[in-house]
């Protein structure tokens, strides 16, 4: 169980290493609606943190705050120990935060290579360097063990849902992202596709990339996450190592925001 060992090692590191991302008393409100209240969260390099919570608990608000879509109204955000003010997706990308939204934001008419490099195409004498792109794309995909695509020159529109996730992940890897935020990556996928995406998450974390994953599916959460952060009505109900929590307790946290006597 290489992954279990990795998790253990990372847990030991936790105390000594500066967190990659640290949220301290982060709040966000929309008019009278308090979406997030004094939220605390730490994510360490190579760690998979699952963000769970019921509908309306503030999961989307939280990732949008981290990815720079919305500025927090209160609290501080630290990136590698330094306080940062992320003012838009470009800022987030510059720090090394890649966000994969549910709709994935890929161009169906472009091929895999073109999508992976969209907006950051390498050039040679001012013209697109297709050869360099294709070599890098092929290497990235094979590093991620993505082997099911027929051709990397195939249009993304012809790919399956899991393959599209793989392209989006590969895009994040090419950006040298240190933190990949995934919003419900397995929501629309079948069993084998889900397994493939969860494998990608593990591969990412094994290579040192931190992953913040939002999911409704507790089976998925427990199969990949090192830490589970539970949001309840905009409050952080707690962050627990996945090994110290079982599904029932997770459900209890999600629905009531606290653990009953069973845990003590």
């Amino acid at each position, binding site marked *: 169980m290489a992954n279990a060992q990795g998790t253990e090692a990372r847990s030991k590191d936790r105390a000594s290493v500066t967190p990659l991302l640290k949220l301290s008393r982060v709040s966000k409100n929309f008019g009278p609606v308090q979406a997030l209240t004094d939220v605390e969260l730490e994510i360490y390099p190579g760690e998979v943190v699952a963000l769970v919570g019921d509908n309306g608990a503030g999961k989307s608000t939280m990732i949008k705050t981290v990815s720079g879509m919305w500025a927090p109204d209160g609290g501080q955000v630290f990136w590698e120990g330094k306080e940062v003010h992320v003012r838009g997706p470009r800022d987030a990308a510059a720090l090394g935060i890649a966000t994969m939204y549910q709709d994935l934001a890929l161009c169906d008419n472009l091929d895999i290579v073109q999508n992976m490099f969209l907006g950051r195409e390498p050039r040679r004498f001012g013209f697109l360097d297709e050869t360099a792109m294709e070599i890098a794309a092929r290497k990235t*995909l094979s590093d991620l063990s993505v082997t099911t695509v027929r051709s990397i020159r195939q249009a993304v529109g012809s790919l399956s849902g899991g393959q599209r996730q793989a392209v989006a992940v590969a895009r994040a890897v090419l950006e040298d992202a240190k933190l990949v935020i995934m919003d419900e990556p397995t929501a629309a996928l079948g069993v084998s596709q889900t397994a493939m995406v969860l494998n990608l998450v593990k591969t990412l974390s094994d290579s040192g990339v931190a992953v913040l994953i939002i999911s409704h599916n507790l089976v998925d959460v427990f199969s990949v996450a090192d830490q589970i952060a539970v949001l309840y009505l905009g409050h952080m109900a707690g962050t627990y190592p996945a090994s110290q929590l079982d599904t029932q307790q997770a459900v209890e946290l999600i629905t009531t925001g606290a653990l009953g006597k069973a845990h003590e």
Partner: protein
Amino acid sequence: MTTPEVSNELVADSLGEYAAAQWKRIKAGESGALPVIVGLVIIVIAFQTQNSKFLSATNLSNLIQQCGVFVLLGMAESFALLLGEIDLSTGYVMAIGATVTAELNAPPHNVNWFLAALAGLAVCAVFGTIMGLLISRLALPSFVVTLAGLLGGEGILLYLIQKDKYAPGGSISVTSNVLNDIDQGSMSNSTGWIVMIVAVAVFGAFALFQHRRRSSSGLVTAPLSLTALKVAAVAIAGVALVLISNHNRGSLLVHLSGVLWIVPFLAVILIVYTVLLGRTRFGRYMYAIGGNPEAAKRAGIRVKNVRMLAFTLSSLTAGLAGLVYLSQLGSIGSDVDGGNYVLYAVAAAVIGGTSLFGGRGKMVNALLGGLVITTIYNGMGLIQIGAAGQDMVIAVVLLAAVTVDALSHRGRIGR
């Protein structure tokens, strides 16, 4: 470490395998330019059997002269269509460009032909940029903005010609020989050979260089024989063109031969635009925005700038069409039917295979579509079918092209 599997046509070692893989792609709905090429061949054969003069040197050079305006208008429209937008102004922008050039070149201004042409193109580019600004910054629908461009363009055209005291009867003649020769003139027989040989040699060297670079980088490469076949096909087409063009198409008394200047004129524009769309970031972003504007925005692409520039290029290309129009007719008047020409612009691009839904199409599609339209008009004229029949046939061809586009679009969405 495993490498991703690659599709059949990319690992094909022999031509046979390559052809088989291509056939699979066509059956899967990724036909590209093939339907229009097949259609064009069928149309040509049909006309030739009806009238043996159709493929004569004289008629072929007529056809080439006639196609320039349609091809360039189709290219202009392609810039808008690739974004999933439309440009209704191209017909009158073409007329304005031609008028500005003609007026500057004619008395009393007598401006040098080159500067006059440049001024005409600049006016078109400014016109397009203004429309592009309104469409991209104010997020106005291109249909309405360019419709205003069409109406306003017609107004400007009438104004320019009515104001010109040197335009008797609402028409300005071209005085410059160079401007006349764009569509009418031809190079000497020997120049034709030299230009053709140089062009084929450059193409061959480039194709070989590309092949080398791919295969030496360890990337899957189409078989070398395919590259050789492409170069050979271009060489054969070039030789055939020069041979036919160098044939005397004049009378017994007036010898007239040589490759028409419009051929290299169109070829250079086609190559520049193909490189622009296929090998630059701007081109890549055009396709990205046409495919998924939201994804393009999130990838950090400056969508508004690209969208604005597309309309600048559309109008600039309409201006180039204006130069050819001016040359073809030898004059420009207030009677240009720009409203009709814009419809040919859309038809040329769509018949050639450019999608109305954005993100799909190439400049060569506009060339092929323009050739189809010209061939139908030319051929039906030869077999003495009047304008009524010609328009109806074009309508059917256009409907067929749009049907193919819509069906394959639906097929892609459904997957």
